[in-house]
């Protein structure tokens, strides 16, 4: 996706960095009277105004200001950063949904409820592909009223032009409400608009676009329709644009939340086939009435490749059900259709190739995470990340072997030796770590052995490099 024009547009995920704003007492309107109904009627303004009040009242008690401490390894060491986002209580027992980019990789989460009470929360699980995370509030030291969960609405019924409210903590100003309309119900955004932590997102969903004001800090907050149901989770906006906010549709949120509460994660199937819109190519691939999904790429060594699928095949059915994607907007749904199959099961696809209809069985694999686990290699002055299947595909690595350098600490021994972020460590002295676990083992052994020289062999783009770390364990260098 490209944009042109005088203003550079940047799609931004919307966690706010400045948490001090939240500590300052926010200027508040007078507290609500006990009898809301009476107060709302007294406020006047007709039916629409009353509907807005009622919708607000349904969601406000579930609204949460989320302040996690986020881990960041990009500087080569574990840095803790306080951020502010929004969330909404969505299930009993204090389950809160927010964005993955707010709290998905966090610790020490503090939440402020609608009644200004602060409670701690724990991370239940997160999913980068939909940018969602689930927290659970810890009520053990809390004496106030339990927040009433908000209800999910049906985002499939949303209409362009429909009035919606956005609630959350823009710039950490908690309990803020803004209003607007649904600008479009199925905005496609390329997964190349990544999360701040580098993960691809939006592969399996389109977005609700709204002109309700959404600012940094709104991330994870609810988009609410006038019946007071949560129809989306506000996640991102184009900065330097006017009123271009994007929310994850509630049908997607509901599924992900339920899976995370049940198992702590979202399980998906992967077959290694990429598809593209069929539009303008129907006649080339002999599609009847524009039906079918066009395979544009098949990863080598993937389940799709093993099943004999290749670019140019036109998928007609998956397990007997017709599939189609003429436009970009229809592609996330197709990927989701595949992802929803339990990993390890067989799917049957029918496809057209060179005019003939063929059939293949594909044994799906677990999709896996975008990013591997982070680890600070403290004494050596850098941070690494495990290599997942998705990392290897994304970075075009020829194997999943080794670990990838995510950051190099300025002034540390590895910076001096010439290690660079993105380097893939293939060899530690003469040991070949297959994964992060083995790398940690090799690291620990050398720390215990008080080694003052460690040789790393790295892959760097299309060449390699030997990097000799000069350490001084006696002085405790690097700590």
């Amino acid at each position, binding site marked *: 996706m490209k944009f042109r024009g005088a203003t550079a547009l940047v799609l931004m995920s919307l966690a706010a960095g400045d948490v001090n704003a939240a500590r300052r007492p926010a200027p508040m309107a007078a507290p609500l009277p006990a009898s809301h109904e009476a107060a709302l009627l007294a406020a006047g303004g007709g039916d629409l105004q009353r509907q807005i009040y009622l919708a607000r009242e349904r969601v406000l008690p579930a609204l949460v200001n989320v302040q996690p401490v986020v881990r960041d390894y990009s500087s080569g060491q574990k840095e803790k950063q306080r951020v502010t986002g929004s969330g909404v209580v969505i299930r009993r027992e204090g389950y809160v949904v927010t964005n993955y980019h707010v709290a998905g990789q966090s610790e020490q989460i503090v939440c402020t409820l609608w009644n200004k009470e602060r409670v701690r929360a724990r991370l239940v699980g997160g999913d980068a592909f939909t940018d969602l995370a689930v927290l659970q509030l810890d009520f053990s030291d809390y004496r106030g009223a339990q927040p009433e969960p908000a209800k999910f609405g049906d985002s499939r019924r949303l209409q362009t032009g429909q009035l919606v409210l956005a609630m959350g903590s823009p710039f950490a100003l908690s309990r803020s409400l803004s209003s607007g309309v649904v600008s479009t119900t199925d905005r496609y955004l390329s997964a190349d608009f990544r999360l701040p932590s580098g993960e691809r997102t939006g592969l399996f969903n389109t977005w609700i676009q709204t002109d309700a004001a959404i600012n940094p800090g709104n991330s994870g907050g609810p988009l609410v329709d006038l019946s007071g149901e949560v129809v989306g989770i506000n996640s991102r906006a184009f900065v330097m644009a006017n009123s271009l906010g994007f929310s994850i549709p509630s049908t997607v949120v509901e599924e992900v939340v339920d899976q995370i509460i049940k198992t702590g994660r979202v399980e998906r199937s992967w077959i290694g086939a*990429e598809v*593209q819109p069929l539009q*303008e*190519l129907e*006649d*080339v691939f002999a599609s009847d009435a524009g039906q079918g999904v*066009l395979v*544009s*790429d098949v990863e080598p060594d993937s389940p799709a490749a093993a099943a004999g699928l290749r*670019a*140019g095949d036109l998928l007609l059915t998956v397990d007997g059900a017709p599939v189609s994607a003429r436009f970009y907007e229809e592609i996330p749904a197709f990927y989701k259709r595949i992802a929803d199959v339990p990993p390890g099961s067989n799917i049957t696809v029918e496809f057209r190739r060179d005019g003939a209809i063929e059939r293949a069985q594909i044994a799906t694999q677990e999709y896996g995470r975008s990013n591997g686990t982070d680890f600070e290699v403290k004494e050596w002055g850098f941070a690494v990340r495990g290599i997942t299947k998705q990392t290897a595909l994304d970075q*075009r690595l020829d194997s999943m072997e080794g670990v990838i350098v995510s950051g190099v600490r300025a002034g540390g021994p590895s910076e001096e030796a010439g290690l660079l972020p993105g380097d893939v460590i293939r060899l530690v002295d003469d040991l070949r770590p297959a994964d992060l676990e083995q790398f940690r083992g090799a690291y620990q052994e050398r720390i215990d052995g008080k080694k003052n*020289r460690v*040789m790393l*062999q790295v892959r760097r*783009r*299309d*060449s*390699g*490099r*030997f990097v*000799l770390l*000069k350490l001084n364990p006696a002085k405790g260098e690097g700590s």
Partner: protein
Amino acid sequence: MRGWCVLTASALVVAGSTADAGPSAAFEKYRASVVAVNYYVETSIMREVREIGGRDLGLLVAPDLVLLNGSIVTSSSTGAQPHDFRVMFVDGSEADAVYVGRDEFANLAFLRLEEAVPARARPIQFGKAPKLRVGDPVFTLGLLPENLQPIVRLQAGRVVAAVDRPKPFIVTDLAVARALGGPVFTADGAFAGVLSELGEAGPSFAQSFGGDGDENAAIIIDAATVQRLTLAPPRRGQSQRAWLGITLQALDKDMAEYWGLGDNTGGIIINSVMPGSPAEQAGLREGDLVLHMNGEPVPVSEEEHVPIFVEQIGSHPVGSRLKLDVLRAGKHLEANIDLVAAPKSRLDAATYHNDEFEVTVRELVFQDYRSFDLKPDFKGALVSRVEEGGWAGVGGLESGDIIQKLDDRAITSPDDVKQVLEAAAVEKRKKLVFFVQRGGRTQFITVQPNWSGSS
């Protein structure tokens, strides 16, 4: 003709002063060898590609050869070759010239004149090169702004440093503006070499100085190098430089110590071996240490010395054999490498431009196979330029795409693309489907020409 009049006048002035040798006489001698080179080059500003005109100094080194600073050839931000070279001589007369090639180490390029040199223009004479010491006065010629006659001015300076390491070269305080590629000579007119920039002594050499921020320090490419290249000018598309096909780094003192080679004086570490290269054929592997080459120690103990080693290999003639003493896992091995010419560079790749589709494609070269991570048997043609508002651009083709198929034709070269696009023009094809690789993934792109519309 206006130029001629001015020239006559200045020739008269000079006539009075030629009696005594010295800078004036030398100026008179060298100005007959200096030319102004006009050319066109592609540049992209805010994604818009434009042709702009360029004018730089050139040096007549043989009756049909003009030498230029090599950066002119690589200056295009789109990677395209400058073209339509026109050379203006001392007497104001002009001649067409074609690009011959560029030597990447000396960063010197050559043009071949397509017309005879006028009587007043004279190639420089390679004599005995003067021995330059720090403090010696040196001179060069720089171009004057366009429309002035004569076209050159004299510039005076001194030798300010004689560098030994990582390789010997002379530094001068001569100003480089509009003077790069000019002849450097002594007060008595002896040819010392050609003016260049420290940062431009060659791409690999420059890298080792990268970030020093001293690009304006002028150096002299010595007369012997200039003469050697003049006798056998590098040819475009036909590398005569030998290569090994490895990437390497210096075996520094700490590294040597780590591998138990305490008293070692240097060597190189092979950190990758390119598939299909002479090094691979000779059985070299990543991690091999090369300590001796043809019986001589490899004196590379600092990263800055690596380019010198690379240049050394490059200076061996193609077809000769290198004997390397290799240390692998503590054991000494001998590797014999038959040197072959380095693969064609991007600059030398064959290209094809189609005006109707407003797209330029070029041949895939070895470098592309490495940077795009392509399998050795991969075939295609690389899109090097697309006009954003042209048919191909509107269809979604982007520069950097590698065309693998075009309609039903498998694409292996720019010529294949040419044949399909030309056939499409004859048949007035309504739609063309490009199957391309972009960012490691493939996709189909539909291009719909508008044959009836005005272009």
